Each structure stands twice: as C-alpha cells, then as structure tokens.
C-alpha cells in the first residue's frame, strides 16, 4: 500500500506514465572535476525530464556545481517558510577527501535525492527558482546569481546605513528590555503543538545522531575486520610455507580463503556506508534543517513585532495581527509538512533497514560458503 507521498512522487516522476499526466523528474549525473589547485571543483550534469508547460521542452541538460545547489536551497528556504526544504549534503571540510571517488559519488547521490525531493514536493515543485535552477543556461545563471549576491550583500552588515543600524539597535534594545522587564512572552506566540514538535525534533536529533554515529563506526568495523583477515591470511600462508605436507597446503588454502572473505567484508562496508549510514545521516540533516526553521520562525515573528516599537499603537496592533496570521499560516503548513515528512521518512528508513538486513545476510552467507568450502579437505587431512 503506497502512501500518498509515494503516489504523488510516482506520478510526477515517471516518464513512462501517459503523456497527459504531468511529470517532472531530474537526475544529477556525471561528476567532472574542473579547475586547478585550490580553485578546483566538481560540476554535475543535471538532466530534467518533464512535460510541464512552464519548462523548455521535454528534456533539458544543464551544468551545475555544489554552490548552485546551495543557492537553490537558500532561495526556497527564504520563500517557502514552514516548508521542510530538503537538506543538502555537507560541504566537506577535509581537503584530502574532497576529490575521492567515494565522496564524489556519495555527494552526487545525495544531490540527486535533493533535487528529486524538491521536484516531488507539491509546493516546491512549482517554484520559479527551481525552474531557473533546472533550465537556465550558464550565462543567465551567472548573472542571476551575481545579482542575487549583490542583493544579499546590501542587506549585509557592511552595506547598512547608519539609520538602519539605529533601528537594529533599538530592535535589540526593546527586545532585551522586554526580556528584562519580563514583558517577553514567547509562550503566547507559540502553541502547545509547536512546543511539542520542537521538543520532539530536538530529542529526535539526539537519538538519530547516536544511531548514525554507530552506523558509521560499523562501517569502519567492517573495514577493520576485512583488513585483519587479509593480514591473517598472509601470515598463515607464510607459516604454511615453513611446514611440510599436508599442513602446508592447508595453511595455504586457509590463507587464500581468509583473503577472499576479507574482500567480501570490504565490499559490504561500502554498501553499508551508502545504503544505511548515508540515509541515516540524511535523516539527521533533515531534522537539523527543521530545527533551523523553528528558530527562524520565532525570530521572524518577534522581530516583526519588536521592530515596530516606534510606530503608533494602531499600526502596531495591525502589524501584530498580521504577523500572528502569518505565523499561524506557517504553523499550519508545518503541520502538513510534518505528516509528509514522517511518511517519507518511514518509507526511506524502511528501505534502508531492509537493504541493510539483506546485505548483512548476504555477507554472512558468503562468508559461510567460503569457509565451508575448506571443510572437506580439512576433514580428509585430519582423518588420514
């Protein structure tokens, strides 16, 4: 039984569905390293397949880099308040790791999921910014982004006019004095539902982070066990070389098997990383990005109100009512998002768990078979 989320996604994203059905799907592929030295970066091909009229044709390919994805997310985050905008994979801090095949592949897969989640979100999929991202050619994007950067810069600290600073100070001042005088009433502006959600999200993050930490360690353990079996295999082979028959041959076979099992473990380590640890990490990111929303919402509403300290009471009241309406709308949206999110996560985690269990079973079977193959010889030798 598919959930509504799945149904929506399947309909929208399957190019094989009848052409009358609207669909939009994107894939992030072909990572290529460009540039030199410190300036080097990875670019990806983003292929969009759609029959939506707003888009330029059934298929379009553009080249994007990580910062472009960041731009898209920031835009969506600003415009669609209350929506759980899908999270991005982290910017890698470790220089050495940045261009490893593993990292590049993991990032590509994560970016692919990112775009598709947006494309299958009922509200976000209609975003103009998404269209720009998926369609705009390089020059256009460059200009567009540069303009955006300028705009953002204007609101940055260094471009502020003195009057603006005064306003900011007053905002902070009144906020502080409210707090000091006990006039701050954040509770009023939040609902018990909201608080419960906030508590849930915070707690959930802790639990998930711990699970993810152990999942990551488990990947390492697979690798370590693999390595130790490899070394053990080599050592017993050398030992076998010292011994006469039949012990010598047996040790040699044992060593070979040990090396084989080691390979299986290394392979599984990679699978666990991609199909289990990464989804868990993604879950953590998602929850963290939801946390961001909460705080932002609170700040927004508050500063809206606080900044109006100078305006007359009537206006202030109107503003405040407007803010409350806005806030309530956001909360409503968030509640819808929560339902969606929970369903989505149950599905995604279910898949991850299933793959993990299957992988572990496969590994154990493979290991058992490998060792079992030695037994007839061992049996024959010891009864001789």
């Amino acid at each position: 039984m598919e959930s509504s989320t799945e149904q929506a996604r399947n309909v929208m994203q399957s190019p094989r569905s009848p052409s009358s059905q609207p669909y939009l799907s994107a894939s992030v592929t072909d990572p290529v390293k460009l540039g030199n030295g410190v300036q080097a970066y990875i670019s990806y091909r983003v292929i969009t397949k759609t029959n939506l009229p707003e888009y330029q044709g059934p298929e379009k390919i553009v080249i994007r880099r990580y910062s472009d994805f960041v731009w898209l997310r920031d835009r969506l985050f600003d415009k669609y308040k209350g929506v759980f905008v899908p999270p991005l994979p982290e910017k890698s801090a470790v220089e050495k790791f940045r261009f490893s095949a593993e990292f590049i592949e993991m990032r590509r897969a994560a970016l692919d999921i990112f775009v598709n989640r947006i494309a299958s979100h009922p509200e976000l999929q209609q975003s103009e910014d998404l269209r720009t991202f998926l369609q705009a050619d390089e020059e256009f994007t460059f200009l567009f982004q540069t303009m955006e950067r300028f705009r953002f810069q204007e609101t940055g600290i260094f471009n502020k006019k003195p009057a603006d600073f005064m306003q900011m100070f007053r905002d902070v001042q009144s906020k502080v004095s409210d707090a000091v005088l006990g006039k701050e009433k954040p509770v009023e502006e939040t609902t018990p539902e909201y608080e419960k959600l906030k508590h849930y999200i915070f707690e959930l993050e802790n639990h998930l982070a711990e699970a993810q930490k152990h999942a990551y360690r488990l990947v390492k353990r697979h690798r370590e066990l693999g390595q130790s079996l490899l070394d053990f295999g080599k050592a017993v082979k050398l030992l076998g070389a010292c011994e006469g028959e039949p012990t010598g041959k047996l040790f040699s076979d044992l060593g070979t098997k040990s090396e084989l099992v080691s390979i299986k473990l290394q392979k599984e380590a990679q699978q666990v990383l991609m199909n289990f640890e990464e989804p868990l990490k993604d879950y953590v990111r998602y929850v963290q990005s939801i946390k961001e929303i909460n705080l932002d919402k609170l700040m927004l509403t508050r500063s809206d109100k606080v900044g109006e300290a100078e305006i007359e009471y009537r206006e202030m009241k109107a503003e405040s009512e407007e803010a409350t309406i806005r806030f309530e709308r956001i909360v409503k949206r968030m509640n819808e998002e929560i339902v969606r999110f929970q369903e989505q996560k149950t599905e995604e985690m279910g898949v991850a768990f299933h793959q993990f269990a299957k992988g572990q079973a496969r590994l154990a079977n493979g290991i058992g078979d490998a060792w079992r193959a030695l037994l007839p010889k061992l049996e024959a030798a010891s009864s001789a």
Partner: protein
Amino acid sequence: MMGSENADGFEETNLNVPKEEMENLVLNGDGTGDVNGDSSNSAYRSAVSTLSTAHDPLSPLPTVLTPADSDPLTAPSSYIEPPSYADVIFSPFDETSDSEINGGEDSSLSPDSLSRSPSSSSSDYIKITVSNPQKEQETSNSIVGGNTYITYQITTRTNLPDFGVSESSVRRRFRDVVTLADRLAESYRGFCIPPRPDKSVVESQVMQKQEFVEQRRVALEKYLRRLSAHPVIRKSDELKVFLQVQGKLPLPMSTDVASRMLDGAVKLPKQLFGEGGASAVPVHEVVQPARGGRDLLRLFKELRQSVSNDWGGSKPAVVEEDKEFLEKKEKMLDLEQQIINSSQQAESLVKAQQDMGETMGELGLAFIKLTKFENEEAVFNSQRTRATDMKNLATAAVKASRFYRELNSQTVKHLDTLHEYLGMMMAVQGAFADRSSALLTVQTLLSELSSLQARAEKLEAASSKVFGGDKSRIRKIEELKETIKVTEDAKNVAIREYERIKDNNRSEVERLDGERRADFMNMMKGFVVNQVGYAEKISNVWARAAEETSQYDRERQSS
C-alpha cells in the same frame, strides 16, 4: 560439490552439499570437540544435546521460503536441514572462558589437551589444577619477621601407574617451580622442555597484587599441564616429587648468581695453579654445561674454543655433522618467526571481531532507544510503523552482536594453539642449545687434549736430550700424563653425552613435528567450523529481519 566461489561472491550461494556429508561431518566425534580420550566424546555429545534443547528461537530450522524466490539470502537457509553447523557450535554457558581455567568443562582446545598423537593411549590421564593462592611467611629469627610469599595449591589427578597415588595435593611457591624447571633442564638435556613462567620481577611490582597472583596462577597451571603432557617428562622423578611430596620440596635448589660467582672465585686459583687433576674438568661435571661462576676457568676455555671455531681454527671431526643440524635449526627459527607473526595477526583478528560485535550491539541499543522514543511520542501511524521497523532491526543487531561475541570467544580458544606453540618453539631452541653447548664441551676437551699432548711431547723431547734423565722434567711428564688420562676420560664422557643429546634432539623434534601437525590441523578445523557455524546463525538473524521489512524491497517491486 561445493557451491562455486566467485570473486564477487554474493550471487552464487547455492549450498549443494549432500545431506549425508553434512551429517557425517557433524556426528563424527573428533569433529570439533577436544580429543582427550573418551571423556571428550561424551562432553561433546552432551553439549550438542544441550544446545538442541536450549531455548533459543533461532536455533531450530529456519523457515523454508517459497522456492520461486531465488534470493540468495533466503535460499541457502532452506538447503540446510539439521544438523547444520549452527547446531554444532558450542555456545559457552557463560560469556567468560574462565570456567575452563578453573578446571571446569573443557569445551574446546585447551593447554592440557595439546598432545593428541596416536601413540598416547586414550586411557592415560593426568590432570593438574593450580588454585587457592595464599600468603605465607618465612620463618625467621629476627624481630621484623621473614619475607612473605605466595603459595599455590597444586592438585593432581591421575591414573598413571608411576604416580602410585591417584590424587595428591601439595602447596608450592614460585621459587619451587624455578627449582623444578632448573633440575629438569639438567636431567633432560636435548629434550624440548616447555619453558617455565617468567619471574616477571617488573610486573610483580607494577601490577595489582591480586591481578598478578591470578596471572601467575594461570601461567603455573599451563606450565604444569604442559609438563605433564610431555611423554617423557611426565614420568620424571623431579615432576613426581614436585607434585606429590608434602612440605618442603626435596630438590636441590639453584643457588643464586652471586654465591655462584663467589664459589667460582674461590675455585679459580686452584684451577689456575693446577692442583692435582683439578685443571681438568671433573668428569661428572662434564655432563653439565659450564655455568657462570662455578666454572670460570672452563667457561674461559670454552669461550676461547668457540672463538677459535668461528675463526676456522682447529676443526675436530664433529663439525661435519653440524651442517644438517644447522639447516634444521635455520628451519626452526624460520618456523618460529612465522608462528610469531601468525600469532600476532590472530590477536588483531580477535580484536577486530570483538569490535564488530561491540559496535553492532551499540547500534542495536541506539535503535531500541529510538524505537521507545518514537512509540512514546507517536502522533502519526507512520511513526508507529517506523518504530516497529526499527525494533526489528534493533533486535537483529543485538542478536548478531551476541553471536559475534560468542564466535570470538571460540576463535580465541582455537587460535590459542598458535600462542601455545610459541612456547614450544622456545623449548626446541632450548633443546638445540643443549646440543650446541655439549658439542662445545667436546671440542674444548679435544683441543685441551691436543695441547696437553703437544706439551708432553715437547717435554719428552727436551728431557731425552739430557743424559741420565731430568728428574724434575720426568716428574712433570708423569703429572702431565695423569692429567691427559683424566682429560681423555672426560672427553669420552663428553662425547657420549653429546651423542645422547643428539639422539634426544632427534626423537623430540620428530615427536614435536608430528604433534604440531596434528595440533595445527585441529586448530584450522576448529577455526573454520566455528566460522561456518556462526556465519549461519548470523545469516539467519538477518534473513529474518529482511523478511520482516520485505515490504520495503524496492528491487522486487520495480515495475
């Protein structure tokens, strides 16, 4: 025919093992248990029957799934009908393997079952336990009292006729063990005598008293068991006396180095100035290697001899044979090196398995906490579903973790053979050293003899020139001839001793080679059977979890 093994592994996991073969492998008594006579078979069988009645939801037959499903993870389980290796593997009754050390059930290889050569009849039986350490005090006349020391209770159960009594119990301190070891080394030159536990002076200062005493108790038990496993040494008087005589150990103690040095210093002038036949090595002492202190002069002579040997000086006939011996020695050194290496890698392997089990368990626990959390906070059904999914995963992870830990404790026991043989290699080196030092004694005496004879000839030549005889020279010649005779005798004794040691070496090395072969094969078999058994168990656990989450199988559902 075994399932084909590709480098990729995962795909071809058909277990086309004929059922009869599987059953034979399991029901064969020497399969996995220790082979310590009849007792092992019954122990093995009772353990197996305990297992099959054990309340473990996973040990009975895994469910046979739809035949159309050729999914590798489920197919093999359905091919394995009991008995599978999963049933053969011993689950320790408790996590620790201490029960074995304290003379409890031997579930697998243990130090006292190292000898499984077909020559020892299965009715021979000797079992030694070391226990009950206690503090005692030396009797002393001083006000402060004497030193305190630890004694251990050593209990022996045996049916060997030499021992007379079937059970005996004595108290011994570590110093007695050193004495025993030294006397054995003297009496059994050329034999591969298991090395005794270290004196561990540093450790005894640094470690916690209790920990150190326990460590020593374990080491003593291992040592005594090894001694009793040696077919020749187990019949020695020294060992018998050690194990049976109450009260003070009636073996001559090894004196400490200082007093030996003093003895040597006293003797040296006599030796140097040739008092009577004292410059020659006393015949009976020829049988022992030169010990520092007491035989300084002999030590110097033998040292000079070995140097001249190295520099290609006088080459007595004996050197010829040494080539074969040297080759064997080289081989043994090489073997020792590889055993050391393998033993180290085995330790790493054990650690890696341990870590895997631990982390798997921690993962399981983290998910259990998550499950609880989601259930408590659940607002939507999707949360409850997810909580259930997590619980399935967590349960599987915790079970797998337990199996990894069990696998590991068994692995430790099997691979322990490698560690055991480190000790045996030392014993071999000791036997070779006995031979070398005996040879050196022979060579020293030979060259001593030849130089004495040369001197005698010179004297005779000189005195014959003097008409009417040279009274003082003639007397000297006579004395010299005496010395030569004594040295001749000593040389003959030394040669006999050398030959004897060579024989001991040969038979010991042969015996050990055979034992080592058997022990290593058992080790490999035990290790592999263990791995197979637990791989099956772990696979079952995960197959079940996969089934419980099968609604998320995207591969199957791709339209």
